[in-house]
């Protein structure tokens, strides 16, 4: 099965504040214990709000830049 790209979470930086979950419009992020994990889902439309709101810089929504053939 093809892996779905998801925002990358640096769990060492996550303080469990839950702000990313609160702005996410799908259920892509969950708190497990006291750190956030991303669940693979195409519902995540890469709005990057989770990255924008994270106070510790723990979430990275990475882009690959490609030229259309």
């Amino acid at each position, binding site marked *: 099965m093809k892996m779905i790209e998801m925002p990358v979470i640096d769990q060492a930086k996550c303080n469990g504040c839950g*702000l990313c979950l*609160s702005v996410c419009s799908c259920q892509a992020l969950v708190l497990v214990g006291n750190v956030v994990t991303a669940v693979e889902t195409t519902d995540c439309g890469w709005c990057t709000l989770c990255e924008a709101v994270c106070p510790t810089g723990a979430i990275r*929504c*990475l882009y690959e830049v*490609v030229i*259309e053939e």
Partner: protein
Amino acid sequence: MCCLCATVGRGDIILGNMVVEAEFLKSIPYFAGLSPVELDAVARRILEREVKRGEIILFEGEPARELYFVASGVVKVFKTSPEGKEQILQLIRPGESFNDVPVFGGGLNLASAEAMAPGVLYGIRKSDLEIMLRDHHKLAQNVIQVLSQRIEHLVSLVEDLSFRHVTGRLARILLEYAGDKGGERRLLTQQDMAAMAGTAREMIGRSLKFLEEEGVVRLERHRIVIKDKKALKEIAGVAD
């Protein structure tokens, strides 16, 4: 909380809540270093407001009546262009304030604010703030400090006001990262782009949207696809 209810009277429970509130208040730059008596005076004037996701808290152009602090949740401060386009100016997280400049300046709300998540806001009325500032010098000092930081932030935004420059720098970054065929994939975030372009993340979001509307790039999940390399080069100011 339950053990409190079981063992103490009503007044004490309220006191218990106040302690929590005071702890939170102390973490807000406006109230740093205030004495317990002063914090208590502040807490008494706070109006708690629960907000739902998507709820509009303030409308741009209306008289500024209250200063707000986010206790929980996230608030988006934004402006809407005459064409109806929204521009996010700032995301306000717990402990941060918004609408301060117009409240102190006595003007109109400079931007609108919307709750991006369910949350709780603490509001203080303009008239109450004025009384508190008169009575508590430390608070007045803090306000000056917070407002000077705001000015610093605004000055840095003004330096970036030339939207064209930011878009040009972004175009250069995209060209540099594109077409790295065969080699290792180089990935970058909007935060990285902002740092590389020496601007705020919000400006990058705006520039990307602009490039997409112009038909130069297409934003996909996880990918920025350059549709018109020639146009991007022109925007970047680099020769073909």
